[in-house]
């Protein structure tokens, strides 16, 4: 098949099918590095600290947080929207980029989808723990009950959230796991027969044999799930934005919110994917699969969505002025120049100004530089939600109720704990699952492998030397691991 010479190869290192299998299975079946233990211990510690803070909150009450009569939501819902946003990259990559036939997605979709699931787990935590009486969570569900006419309120965006997020989680989980099945079978086949790993991966791979009928059904299911996921990319964050958009609070009551939130979600999702993938490709020595081309492409998406978000910021200000509404004008001026001005300008700098460096190709292709920018994106997008929630609430209509909000150690610990939970899950994922969709990658080897795209071995070697990070997971010696060609 002819491949355009201007299109860069997506798989480097003159890989064969066998080598792909080896590269992806060896971190799983090999010996665990002490670095993995140390890293996981740290993230797990953060996670358990967060759990302890949550337990304290539930035991004592929401009063342990810094909220007050005026600011009823702050860190809790900020974290919720932040984590929901993080998940969006995975869905976008697996569904939308699939529709657009973006083959570069294959190197990153597995990890990104895993992040989606972990992020939704983190996100789902917050609406539960922010409740005054979380033990009554089941009242959110429209289950037949003996309470007479009591039913849920279908007018409430919070209820829409329940459906949106549970659907999102279910579809994402199914999609991710379905894709994993052939790769889990691959790990099973490489494991020593009779070993624990062999038994475990046999169970996890649901008896996959790779025959034609299975592949046919696999493809069919993947297609259905991709079709289901596609609207979710747009719907989930739109619905989350309705929490604010359908209210009457200036700064919340904004029709621009659904597209603005979706763009922001993809922006933040790609930020997080970049953060983790740059580490992963170094740690697991996957630079041949997650190439600079991939990082470049993701940086472009980040730049584009970042500017969409920036455009939304500008639009909000314009409409606030253009509406002639005193309340709108006040709340936006207060955002930029009120007591929380610093959070607004952190948001603008991190989301709009700093990503502008991605116009420069050289910087887009510098992994550690992109990594730093991706951290800024994460910070900026957290602050975006903080700005929307807290600055709108703390000074609304009646000046008598204006109040400042300050988080307590409990809220900060829960935020750290949510990162701990997310990273712990990701560490477990990276250790026990193939982080790259092997079966799919193999499907594009003959079109996007460097040897087929005309990249010379010498040129590849030069790229290889560009790596800067040490390896967390050492690839163990494997009898099948051949020496370089």
């Amino acid at each position, binding site marked *: 098949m002819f491949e355009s010479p201007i299109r860069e190869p997506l798989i480097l290192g003159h890989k064969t099918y066998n080598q792909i299998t080896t590269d992806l299975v060896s971190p799983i079946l090999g010996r665990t590095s002490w670095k993995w233990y140390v890293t996981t211990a740290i993230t797990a510690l953060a996670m358990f600290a967060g759990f302890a803070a949550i337990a304290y909150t539930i035991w*004592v*009450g*929401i*009063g342990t947080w*810094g*909220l*007050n*009569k*005026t600011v*009823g*939501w702050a860190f809790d819902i900020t974290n919720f929207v932040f984590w929901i946003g993080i998940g969006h990259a995975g869905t976008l990559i697996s569904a939308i980029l699939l529709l657009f036939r973006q083959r570069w997605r294959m190197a990153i979709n597995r990890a990104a989808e895993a992040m989606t699931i972990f992020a939704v787990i983190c996100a789902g935590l917050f*609406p539960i723990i*922010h*409740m*005054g*009486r*979380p033990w*009554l*969570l089941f*009242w*959110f569900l429209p289950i037949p009950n003996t309470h007479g006419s*009591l*039913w*849920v*309120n279908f*007018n*409430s*965006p*919070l*209820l829409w959230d*329940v459906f949106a997020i549970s659907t999102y989680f279910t579809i994402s989980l199914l999609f991710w796991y379905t894709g994993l099945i052939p790769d889990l079978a691959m790990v099973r086949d490489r494991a020593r027969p009779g070993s624990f790993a062999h038994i475990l991966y046999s169970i996890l791979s649901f008896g996959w044999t790779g025959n034609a009928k299975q592949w046919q059904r696999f493809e069919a299911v993947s297609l259905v799930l991709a079709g289901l996921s596609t609207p979710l990319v747009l719907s989930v964050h739109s619905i989350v934005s309705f*929490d604010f958009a*359908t*209210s*009457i*609070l200036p700064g919340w009551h904004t029709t621009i919110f659904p597209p603005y939130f979706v763009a922001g979600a993809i922006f933040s999702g790609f930020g997080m994917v970049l953060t983790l993938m740059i580490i992963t490709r170094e740690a697991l020595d996957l630079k041949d699969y997650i190439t600079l081309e991939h990082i470049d492409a993701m940086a472009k998406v980040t730049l584009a969505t970042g500017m969409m978000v920036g455009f939304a910021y500008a639009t909000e200000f314009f409409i606030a002025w253009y509406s002639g509404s*005193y309340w709108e004008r*006040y709340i936006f001026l*207060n955002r930029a120049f009120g007591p929380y001005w610093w959070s607004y300008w952190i948001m603008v700098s991190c989301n709009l100004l700093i990503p502008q460096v991605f116009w420069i190709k050289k910087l887009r292709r510098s992994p550690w530089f992109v990594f730093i920018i991706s951290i800024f994106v994460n910070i900026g997008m957290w602050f975006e939600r903080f700005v929307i929630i807290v600055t709108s*609430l703390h000074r*609304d*209509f*009646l*000046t*008598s*109720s*204006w*109040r*400042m909000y300050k988080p307590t150690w409990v809220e900060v610990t829960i935020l750290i704990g949510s990162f701990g939970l997310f990273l712990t899950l990701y560490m477990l994922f990276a250790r026990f699952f193939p982080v790259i969709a092997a079966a799919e990658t193999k499907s594009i080897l003959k079109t996007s492998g460097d040897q087929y795209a005309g990249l010379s071995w010498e040129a590849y070697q030069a790229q290889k030397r560009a790596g800067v990070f040490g390896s967390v997971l050492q690839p163990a010696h494997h009898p099948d691991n051949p020496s370089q060609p």
Partner: protein
Amino acid sequence: MEEFSRDIPVEALFSEGLPTNRRDFLKWCGITISSAVLAACDKTPVKYALPYVKKPPEHLPTVADYYASTFFDGQIFQSVLVKVREGRPIKIEGNPSCPLNRGGTHARGQASVLTLYDHTRLQSPLLDGQPADWSSMGAPLMDLIKAQDAQGKAIYLITPPIVSPSLEALIKEWLKAFRQTHHIVYAAESYDGLLTAHEALFGRRVVPTYRFDQAQVIVSIAADFLGTWLDPTTFARQWAENRQLYGDNKSLSYHIQFEPVPTITGLSADRRIAVEPSEVPRVILSLYNRLAELAGQPPLNDERWDTPKGDVAHAAQHLWAARGKALVVARAHDPALQAVVAWMNLLLEAYGNTLFVEPGCRLRQESEEAFDRFIQEAEANKVGAVLFYQVNPLYSYPQSDRLQAALGQIPITVAISLYAHETARQCKYVLAENHYLESWGDAQPYEGLYTLRQPAIAKIFSTRSLEEILLNWLGRSESHLEYLQSFWAKNIYPAYQAYRKAQEAGKSTPFWKASEKPLPTESAEAFWNYALERGVVDMMTLPPTQPKPKGKPTDWATRLPKIDSSSSLTVYLYEKVGIGDGTDAGNPWLQELPDPVSRVAWDNYAAISPLLARELGLKTNDRVRVTVSGQALELPVYVLPGTAPKTIGIALGYGRKGGGRAAIGVGQNAFPLFQRLPSGHFTSATAQATLEKLPGEYVLARVQQWETYAGREYIRETTLSEYAKNPKAGNYEEGELISLWWQEHPQPGHRWGMTIDLNLCIGCGACVVACMAENNIPVVGRDEVRRGREMHWIRIDRYFTSTRGHSDKPEEFPAASPEDFPRAFFQPMLCQHCDHAPCETVCPVLAIAHSSEGLNQQVYNRCVGTRYCANNCPYKVRRFNWFDYTNAEKWVFNPVDQLGRMVLNPDVTVRARGVMEKCSFCVQRIQAAKLEAKKARRPLQDGEVKTACQQACPTGAIVFGDLNDPNSLVSRRAAEPRGYYALAELNVRPSIRYMVKVRNESLSETQNT
């Protein structure tokens, strides 16, 4: 039937092939069930419920009884109705039969029910600080006092003003048992100057009876007569009578206030002028001199002080123009100044029109001179015994060290007190006093007006009333009730008979507009029964003439205080509405009630003007040391617009060392800063103060952190002249508002609504405390208020104007020149029960429902606590239970221990942690009234349902009722051109209509730009 012809082989089934056969199975079942039953047997769960063995037929469970009674804490007098449920008093209402308050209440009256259930009250007498028996406090103690008397030593009884005629008689009788006895009336905030002046002028040591309702021009010089001065609830009601702009009435009284520190009276005045405390005497003298000029009389001296704008001359002109309908009142401790005020009122022909020496007011009887004499005698070792009844001079006497030393000389010290307060702790014998709700009694607050007090509950602790103690000491065997009944039969009943006879003969004019039917006079018993039911016996008559004054004004010229014209800082001591002189400082409801002016709860502070703050580089919450005449206080700063530029305002009543669960550790005691005048009286203004900044800050518990309303239109105002031209002045209609809702919900029956007149609201806070009592609102304490988590369902927002109408910056208070003062507004804010309530749509579990009567109903047991509703409420009236406030161990200020729970209203759910709550429009009252009407098979009458806030309001600013009834008061008020909805442009369609504030003054006169 074939298929069931054989038995099912159960036995075989259970025994065959199983290790356990059927019998064993049943045994195991039996053991399990019986052990589960045994394990479940713990203590008897219900320990405190006691059945009625014989239920009194007149008491129905769940039906409240109301008993008329009398509240007097030494400062605030109130005729009240006590709501009793299942034998427990749970709420205080004003007595509508009383011509003074006519149903209105003061915050302190409302809160008084809480102290009844305070377990920190004295529960038995104390001897040397140890619980003792009443037997040792009876005759043995009396013998000890008699022994002192026999040694020729003086016996002193020190009390607050004794308004009870029966107690007064009993005290006189008791005092006769001794050779040298003195009954002294002591008050922390003394009105001795006013009393002395009137004694000198009219020969009667009484405070005059004021009639603010008769006054068209009122000039108050530092007297907070709507909040704390003398009889504020009565005065507020009277003042409000001339502030009603309904229908065709286009006139208002004109109220000018000169004061150093803003009070609710000043903020409600048409014109308020901030004057230094040192200028207060100058205002009085200058006003007199100008009035004398206008009257063609000789001036007292050449004092012609005035503000740069000429406010004193302006006041003089208005007063003079309204002679006969003018009134001047002042808070001044110097008798000479009060005499000048009295001469001023004489010039204005006010005596007999707007104030009366006959009948006089008996609420104040103190004598500072007598108390000084007591200390001198005690120091000279001439006092054998002293009895402190309801007074706490070791806390409130400015020279308490001297008093304490003097007390050490007295062999027998007795305190008769509700609490082991500062004075009681220094006394050898402490006699635990009844709470007033446990006592019989009577009162004569004004000459000719009698009220009765009856117990609403049996004594909770081993306590006695003073009457019981005295009767015991006198060796009389009758009970308090028997004594009271016989006293009334002997004294009040004949007096009332005579009064009625004179009435029927047309020989006397009633002082108040008669609104009640006369009491029966055929027998003393019937009279007593009806009087007790009504609680009030009004025999006040208007004498044909008032006493003539003695002497002439110039007699006082030599006794006038020296004018301090130095420009030093002056400490000015004042009282707050909730705390007063500190007697009730132990009441958590009152501590949690934010000061209406500063909106700070739980502390006092140094109130300074923005000008001084800028000059000294101070801001709110900075710590300072205020030093004056050798006394120093460390206080946080509160920058209060309207404070005179060289004034440091400090509230009294704080820094208690004992007396009630909330008293200790709150604020600093400012009483030591009182200074003696040359006349011997203590004055609240002390010059030559210094202010020194201390490191660090002290965060005040402010419920409102933004002082201005930023020009937003939920506050609307106009002037009387504008209003006279156009009744819609300052107001505007919203344009056509489009609704997203496609259908209106029919409200065929009632549609509850409210109007709140900003012109009548004086910010006194009675409604806030009433709401706390009615709706079981928790007290969260200082730290939680600091965090912005107070639970009040109704709050009174206080706004200042800023120099620029739409300014959002608080520092833009007019602070450019000393006389600048921003206009102020009080806006009661509570759930608006919106028809299109934004809170209702966002609740995911439908915990907020809209009733067919227009109520926005929070369903506590359905609430899961997402707080989405509170975020979406534009009025920010929703309150979240951040913690389990019912946990009595942790929330020490919330009165929910075993005893404290008794105060809870059983008709209102106590909310759990994690639940949102808010104003319900007192739905329990609505339901109760509807049931009554239904039982009587008649429609509900207008005015039958009163919300707690409405009922408490002394000025009638709040009106509640059925908007579907076009003739209801609330409908008529809502149709007034002054009506507007707060934040109407949001189209949430609130049910509360505010009425534009109208000032009897041009705005340019009051606004300083």
